[in-house]
C-alpha cells in the first residue's frame, strides 16, 4: 500500500492511496505511528484517496486514536469520503477522531 507523506509546516500529512483493509491496515498503522512518534503528535491523516476501510482498518484507527488520547491529543482525519464517514459514525468512532474537510483546515487546527 502506498502511503504518501507530506510536510505542511510543522505538520506531517499522511495520505494512504487506497482502501485500508487487511494487511494494509497494519502497514497504515505502522506508518502513522512512526509519524506520530517523530512529530510529537503533529500529524494529519488525509483519507482523500481512501474509498473505504474494513474492520482491521477501523481497529488501526481506534488504536491510533487511543495512543494519541493518552497524551491528550486527537487523531485528525481529513478528506473523509461519505462511505468512510458513515462507517466511522456507525461504529461510534466518529467521536474519537477529529474530522476536517481538507488538509488545509486540518493543518490550521494546530494553530
Amino acid at each position, binding site marked *: 500500500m502506498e502511503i504518501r507523506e507530506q510536510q505542511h509546516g*510543522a505538520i506531517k500529512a499522511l495520505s494512504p492511496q487506497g482502501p485500508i483493509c487487511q494487511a494494509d491496515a497494519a502497514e497504515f498503522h505502522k506508518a502513522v505511528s512512526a509519524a506520530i512518534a517523530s512529530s510529537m503528535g503533529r500529524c494529519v491523516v488525509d483519507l482523500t484517496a481512501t474509498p473505504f476501510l474494513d474492520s482491521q482498518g477501523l481497529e488501526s484507527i481506534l488504536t491510533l486514536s487511543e495512543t494519541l488520547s493518552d497524551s*491528550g491529543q486527537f487523531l485528525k482525519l481529513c478528506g473523509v469520503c461519505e462511505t468512510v464517514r458513515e462507517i466511522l459514525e456507525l461504529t461510534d468512532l466518529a467521536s474519537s477522531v477529529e474530522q476536517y474537510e481538507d488538509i488545509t483546515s486540518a493543518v490550521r487546527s494546530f494553530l
Partner: protein
Amino acid sequence: MLPRRVSLISGVLVMNTAIVALAMVALWLVVDRVRTEEAERASDRAAAAIAEVVRPDLERALADRDLPALRLALAKAAHAASLTECRIVLGDNSVVADLETGAANLKALPAELPAVSTVGDAKRTFILEGGVGGRAILTLEVPAASARSEWLEVGFGGVCLAAVALLGFVSVRAQKRSMPVTQVSSALSSIQQGEKELAALELAESFGDVATAWNGLLKELASHRAKERFDSVLTRRTQGGERDEVVPRMVDALWHGVIAVDDELNIRYCNGAAAVFLCGTRDGLLGTPILDRIEDPQAKEKLGKLAGARSRGKIVIETRTGEGDNGAVLRISARPVGSGGGAVLLIEDVTQQRVADKSRNAFVEQATHELRTPLTNVRLYVEALVEKPDADVSTRSQHLNIINQEVRRLERIVGDMLSVSEIEAGSLKLAIHDVRLPALFADIEAEFSAPARAKNIALRFDLPPKLPTIVADRDKLILALTNVIGNAIKYTPEGGNVKVSVKADDSLIIDVADSGIGIAADDAERIFDRFYRARDPRVEKIVGTGLGLALAREVMRLHGGDVTVQSVPDRGSTFSIRMPLKAPLSRAA
C-alpha cells in the same frame, strides 16, 4: 488443602465398611466350610454303623443266594436308616439290589460270584462276604445331618445388621463432627480465590471450639489487613503521592504538558503530553532533573532559577528540541508553588504557530515589496507629470499608461489579498453570469503582451476558431488565468516561450505551457498551498506572494474544475485549467 466437597473422613468410613463386610464374608465362608466337613464325617460314621447292623442279614442272604431275601433286608435297612442311596453290586458291576426301582438288573444270583477287584469310597462302601461263592459290594449313602443351625444364621444376620447400623451411626457422627473442618477448608479456598469480605467466612458458634478458633483467626486477619491499608495510605500521604484519581485523569486529557518538580527540579509528576514533548516515558521521567531535558543553555539557565525557590515569579521560555521536520518548538511556562519549594510547568507545542508566524512574516515582506514597486512607479511618474506640465503629448501619454498599468497591478495584488481573506473566512462566492470567451482571452492577451514583450518571451494564444459563451464568474476566471499566465511569464527566462491553448468541448480546458525553470517533484503539489513558494533559489530572487496558484485552484474548484501541473525542472511546466461547461444563462432562460 482439600478441595471443596471432599471429606477424608467419609472416605475412611467407606473403606472401613468395605473391610468389615469383606471380613464378615470371609468368616462366613470359613464357618460354613468347617460345618460341612463335620457333617460329612458324621455321615461317614452313620454309614459305617448301619453297615455293621445290616451286614449279617445281607451276608446270610448272599451266602444262600437268596436274592429276594437280600433285597428285602436291604430295603428294610434303607427304610429304617432313611438312606438316600443303598445298593449291592457284584464284581462285574451287575446290580444285585438297589433302592431305586428297576436299577437292579440281576434276576438271580449266580452260584459263583465274580471277583471284586476295586472298591470305591472306603468310607461309604463295604465288602459283603458271600460265603464260598465270593463277595459283593455294599454301598450306603446316609443323608447328611442338617449342618446348619438356624440360631447360628439368625445370630450371624443380627450381628451383620448391627455392624452395618453401627457403621452408619459412626459415619453420621463423624460427618457431623467433621463439618467445621469442611467449613474451614471451604473458607480457606475462598480466601485463596480472593474473597475480601472476611465476615462472610465466619463459622457459626454451634460448630464449637473449631468455629471459635477459626473466627478468632479471621478477626486477626481483618485487623492485619486494616493496619496494612492504613499504613499504605499514611505512606502515600506522607510522601506526597496521594492524589485524587479524578485529577490525574483530567490532567492526562490535557493536550498541554503538565509537570510538577520538587525543590531540586526533579520531576515528581508529568502527564502524557509532557512525556511526549520531553521524548520519554512517564515512569522514565519521574525522579530525573527537568534541566536534563532542556537543550538550550539560556532556557536552562532561566529555568534553573526555580531551584531552591530563587525565583518566585512566572518564567516563560521557548526551547527547541530535535532537528529538522521532526523537531519541535516548546513554550514552557513555569511558576513556583507556595513556599515549600517545587514548581509546576506548563509545556505547549508552538511549532506550527512559529512556522505560521514565519510564513506570515514572509508574506508581509513579499506583499510590502509587491505593493511598494508599483506605488513607487506611480509616485515617480506622477511627479514627472507634475514637474513637467509642458511635456509633449506622447510623453504624457506614455507616463499615464505606465501609471495605469501600475495601478492595475496594485489593484490585482489587493484583489488577491482580499480573495485570500474571503477564502480564509469561507466567504469567497461566485457571481455567475454569461462570459464570452473570445472577449475574455482578448483582454488577457492585451494585458500580458507588454510584459512578455519586455522579457522577449514569445506569448502565443492557440484559440479555436469559435469559442462558446460559458457560465462563470468572469472576474474570478480572469483572476485565475492572470495568475497562471502571469506566473508562466514571471518564471520563464528571457527569450522563452509561453503558449496558451484552449479547447472547449464538454469541458473548458486551458493549458498554459512555458519553457521556464520548471518545478521540482517535491514542490509540484505544494505550490498550490497558500503562502508557499518553491525552494528553488531562482524562485527566491523573484518577488511573489505565494498566493496566486492557491487562488487559481480555489476559484476553479468553485467552478467545479481544478488546476493541475506537470513539470520538468529546467525544461518548463504545463498548467492545466479545467472546468465543466454549462449552458449560457441567456439560452437557458
